[in-house]
């Protein structure tokens, strides 16, 4: 005679009846205290379990049998628990290792390739006018934290603005693309492209490089504008946040925040392909505008010296936004 110990819950009250379930032929009897029930063995449904939670059996009277001795239930009842695909995968360590490998590889591919590709497609479908509307807001935001007004005399800035207009025309960019002069203690000698086609150049950069070298740096920034790097970076960031939130949703908002921190640190490094694209664009634009790509190499050399990085060495700071300086200079020189 086969049997197992279980708790019986009738489904009409929350009373717990400790019972002994016994299987004889095709009959299942459930007995304990004043309780004595009998069912057909085939009428019992063994519910799917997750992990090592107790076995649950739904009875035709709406009652529930809960037993912890899975082996005894299996042996006496002989009805397999309903098991889905997930249950079968979870109970094989090889399947778990396979799933882990799949998730790691898939996560890698999604993070590095699928998200950028998707973000770029969306960015290209956004009308230029919508992106241009972002410009003033972004400018006000960076003005508040990064910049102070420029102290350049008009006779210094006017020729630079003229070079800029020439480059914009050669690049075939909309005339709304504009140049702003600012000074920044934080950024030092630098140039920045904002979404919506606003290029900012700092006074210290104007003081550091020659006029034609500055034009080469502006060409690089116009590369960011032309390739819509601002909007693409924004969208990549949003999509990455969405995916991390989905994966780590388990841990709630907490983990999404932690997950977003490394992403924020990586932000500087994933802009590297953007820098390469902007470089290639700049070298091409300089040639088309009748200038020399070597101006760009010269500008990079000067910037490198100003940042106390040896332009001929390959070492670069992880947080530097312009890594691999030597490589970039080499490419600019070869472009001749």
């Amino acid at each position, binding site marked *: 005679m086969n049997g197992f110990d279980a708790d019986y819950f009738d489904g009409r009250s929350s*009373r717990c009846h400790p019972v002994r379930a016994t299987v004889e032929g095709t009959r299942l009897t459930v007995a304990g205290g004043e309780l004595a029930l009998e069912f057909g063995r085939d009428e019992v449904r063994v519910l799917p379990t997750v992990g090592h939670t107790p076995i649950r059996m739904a009875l035709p009277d709406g009652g529930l049998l809960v037993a912890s001795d899975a082996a005894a239930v299996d042996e006496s009842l002989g009805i397999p628990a309903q098991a889905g695909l997930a249950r079968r995968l979870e109970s094989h360590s090889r399947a778990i290792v396979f799933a882990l490998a*799949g998730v790691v590889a898939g996560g890698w591919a999604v993070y590095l390739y699928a998200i950028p590709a998707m973000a770029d497609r969306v960015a290209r479908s956004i009308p230029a006018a919508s992106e241009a509307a972002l410009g003033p807001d972004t400018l006000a935001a960076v003005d508040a934290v990064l910049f102070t007004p420029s102290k350049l005399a008009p006779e210094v800035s006017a020729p630079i603005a003229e070079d800029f207009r020439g480059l914009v025309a050669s690049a075939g960019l909309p005339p709304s693309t504009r140049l702003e002069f600012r000074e920044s203690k934080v950024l030092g000698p630098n140039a920045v492209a904002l979404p919506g086609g606003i290029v900012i150049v700092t006074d210290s950069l104007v003081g550091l490089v020659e006029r034609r070298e500055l034009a080469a740096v502006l060409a690089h920034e116009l590369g960011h504008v032309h390739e819509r790097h601002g909007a693409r970076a924004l969208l990549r960031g949003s999509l990455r946040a969405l995916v991390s939130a989905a994966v*780590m949703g388990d841990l709630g908002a907490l983990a999404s925040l932690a997950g977003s921190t490394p992403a924020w640190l990586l932000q500087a490094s994933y802009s590297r392909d953007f820098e390469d694209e902007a470089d290639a664009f700049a070298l091409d634009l300089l040639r088309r505008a009748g200038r020399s790509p070597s101006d760009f190499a010269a500008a990079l050399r000067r910037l490198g010296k100003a940042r106390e990085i040896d332009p001929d060495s390959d070492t670069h700071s992880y947080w530097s936004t312009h890594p691999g300086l030597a490589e970039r200079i080499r490419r600019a020189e070869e472009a001749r």
Partner: protein
Amino acid sequence: MNEVLPAGTVRHAFRFEGDAREYFGIWIVNLFLTMITLGLYSPWAKVRKKRYFYGNTWVAGANFDYHGDPVSILKGRLLAFAAFAAYTVVSEFYPRAAYGVLLAAIAASPWLIQRTLRFNAVNSSYRNLRFHFHGGLRDAAVAVWPLALWPILGLLLGADGDVPRTAWHWFALIVPGLAFAASYPRVVGALKRYSVGNAAFGDARFGIDLPYSEMYVIYIAAGIAAFLGLFAIGAVVGLVAIGSPKIGVGLFWLAYLGGIAAFLAYTRSRVANVVFGGTRMAGGVRFVSTLAAGKLAKIYFVNLLAVACTFGLAVPWAVVRTAHYRAEQLALESDGDLDDVLAAIARPVSAAGDQLGEMFDVDLSL
């Protein structure tokens, strides 16, 4: 626990029996299937996860069970995903419209909150009896309406996404923010009152005694501590960063995680203790929650570090250890034998709630 209970009082501690290694298998298979189905499997994954956590949570000799229908959850998720995507795009590209989107979300929230609470209650069971939720739409709206002050004031004062430059800009930015901060503890309290006070286990209703002042005490203390903490962290990290920017960045990251862990641990543990402490069930059953903010903060901080350093693979370990701690700090108390009290609870005559899950029901908790 060394606490001496009054004579006749019986205490049953909750227990979580989940295992990090076992849950890792469930979690990674869930993630894998979700990935290869481009997210469509996620409701099934959620149900498996919930069944694992419910099934491993024990009190008074029995465990819980979850019965949610993945298809209902899928409907809710598609809705939530569309809304979130719309919000993200709108707020990135049209910062001025963000208040409008926020207002629409708040207008829809009573319905979403009520549906979600009912879905979760009706699909949870203990001892083969379902939970129920009797809260109405009106009460949900009454609970959340102060949140609408924030965007309404923002729109009225003409605040836009711009960085403030004039005094008026600052005023337009700060007043709605202050209104939000001032109403937030009340809204949290009102939502707890709504969700617990309208819940039932079988025919046994839950009741809650939760003064809003307790919520204000918690959030004001947390706000002051966060403010002072930010200054202290800023000063220390700033000094270190002058010496070595790299160590400064590393330290900033650690301080950032620690700050989040401490803030969430403090508010969550205090709110949970107060809410459970004020909860009663018909038949004189009380809840006792003894979460310690410091202990929980340590758990959260280690969780965050582990999750960040493993690119998320430590999530199962983190959630299981958190569940262990939360369960072991929660207990049921009754005068006299709890089994007798529980045995008296029956299924309500009209069990209409059981069928509600079949209708258009959503579960929005992501």
